[in-house]
């Protein structure tokens, strides 16, 4: 058992190290800016005295490593600094939007993961048949479509006929049921973007296992095909499938940015894109760090779960 804990600690350490390097990278990339923040803020009024005053106010006169540590310390305590464009603390901007984005992502995951697993199992059950071929071609096409295309098609078919609203306008006071209803189209769009990939990988994982001798044995014993897949193949395919699920949830992070814009959803992605437009560096830094941490965290989770579910992997490390 101590072996497992040691392995997990090692992975966690690696994850934290990656995050630290990431934060350093995000911090340094801004350092590389031509000119500095103070001049950007002042614009036309950038007299030497003004610049010096603002630099002092923002702490830009301190050496880079002190500033990095201050910045990182602030981030860890939930203090993201001030937005340049809106002149407000960023943490106040982020908190409700992060909640919304998390809600949308979880909502999508609740639809997409079971759907993808069932479809993937079905495709591996009827492999090389018509169901498999059609679902494969559909999946390949769905992967190739830009998220906003799928989003607008959803609007065209489901919002125009009045079944669902085309704008996912929610605020903290919206009731849970209403939220589910209003966010249905964005969640459906994201589901379509993610399910295809997840389904294909599930199918591949199960088919890999099906090639093993013990499955042939089960078949020769006369076990029913459905039982072979659910009871014999699935437990051994869990590790790759979990990996796929986590990877795709990580992929949701980029998808969510675009879908939020299509449906005018007040989430973190929209905040980030606005930040890029106004070159609001602190906002982009903060959102990029949050998205990147979620991505690294999910990948780490996938790694750990797939190791735990596979005794052979555990012995090797």
């Amino acid at each position, binding site marked *: 058992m101590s072996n497992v804990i040691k392995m997990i600690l090692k992975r966690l350490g690696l994850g934290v190290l990656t995050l630290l390097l990431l934060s350093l990278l995000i911090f340094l990339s801004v350092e590389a800016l031509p000119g500095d923040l103070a001049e950007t803020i002042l614009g036309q009024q950038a007299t030497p005295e003004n610049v010096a005053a603002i630099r002092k106010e923002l702490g830009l006169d301190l050496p880079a490593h002190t500033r990095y540590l201050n910045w990182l310390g602030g981030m860890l305590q939930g203090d993201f600094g001030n937005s340049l464009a809106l002149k407000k603390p960023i943490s106040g901007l982020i908190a409700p939007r992060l909640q919304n984005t998390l809600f949308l992502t979880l909502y999508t995951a609740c639809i997409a993961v079971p759907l993808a697993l069932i479809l993937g199992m079905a495709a591996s059950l009827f492999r090389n048949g018509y169901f498999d071929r059609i679902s494969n071609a559909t999946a390949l096409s769905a992967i*190739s*479509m*830009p998220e906003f295309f799928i989003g607008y098609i959803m609007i065209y078919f489901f919002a*125009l006929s009045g079944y669902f609203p085309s704008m996912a306008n929610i605020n903290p006071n919206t009731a849970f049921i209403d939220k589910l209803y209003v966010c249905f189209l964005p969640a459906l769009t994201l589901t379509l973007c993610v399910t295809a990939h997840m389904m294909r990988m599930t199918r591949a994982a199960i088919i890999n296992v099906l090639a093993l001798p013990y499955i042939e044995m089960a078949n020769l014993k006369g076990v029913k095909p459905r039982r072979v897949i659910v009871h014999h193949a699935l437990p051994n395919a869990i590790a790759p499938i979990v990996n796929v699920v986590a990877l795709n949830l990580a992929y949701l992070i*980029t998808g969510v940015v675009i879908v939020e814009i*299509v449906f005018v959803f007040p989430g973190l992605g929209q905040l980030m894109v606005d*930040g890029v437009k106004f070159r609001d560096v602190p906002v982009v830094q903060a959102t990029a760090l949050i998205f990147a941490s979620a991505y690294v965290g999910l990948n780490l989770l996938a790694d750990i779960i797939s190791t735990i579910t596979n005794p052979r992997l555990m012995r090797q490390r």
Partner: protein
Amino acid sequence: MAYLLTLLWIIVAVLVSLGAGWCFRAFLISVSSQNMAKVFRTAPLTASFGLLVIAIYTSCAVFAPLIAPYGEAEILSYGFEPWSSDYWLGTDNLGRDVFTRLIYGARNTVGIAFLITALAFIFGTIIGIYTALKGGFIDQLLSRLIDVLMAIPSLIFSLLMLTIFGTNVISLVLVIATIDSTRVFRIARAVALNIVQLDYIEAAKLRGENTLYLIIREILPNALAPLAAEFGLRFCFVFLMISALSFMGLGLQPPSADWGSMVRDNADLISFGDITPLIPAGAIALLTIAVNFVVDWMLHRASGLKD
């Protein structure tokens, strides 16, 4: 009823495109040399349809000024005119001909995506093969650095970089090419690692050939097949990413025509039941699907799987 009708249209579209693929394959077989004809005969209908689409897009991109009825940024009428014989797909929010901009979009969007992919491949493969050849400290350092870079989702990373360098075409090309070359680096290095152990590389080293010769004349030709398939896939990623960035208003800047921003500028029309904004989005999807079909076929041929 409306949904059933849509389903019917989808089935008709699929059948027509498969038919077009069949015709195009027959055409390719008849015009190409004996060896090539043998290759094309094995192409599934999806792949030949993909080839047909790629051929159409390429000719649109090359001959854009000849095909398009109007100028790229020419303002012709009031905004949002409906489809008519003068303006085949109507006009956009500023009164420019949508059909014309669609044709020019093939040149701009596809051209830039191709340029970025090519740049990423030149950087990525050369550095990847170089590190595989040299090994040791440089290899370790670069590989770990690129591991960290790959831990950031590429869209998020490019948004961060675009904030810093500003949103113009040059920084767009350089930023995305750099980010993408990290992915190419990984694959090129992995492929090259298998090759550098072979005897003929050792022989070339003993002959005293320099590194550049080794990379270009000895390793690259043998790594070409997997890299070619990867080129297709990476092109799709880059193409989708550029469209997404343009859609967010951070990609190609006006007045150059571009499919992503065309969707965004005219998106309001969808709420009135007009499908014009879906056409450029569909054009993006169609090209990506086509390239994927062709890559699928190439991978299948390369792997020798015949199941």
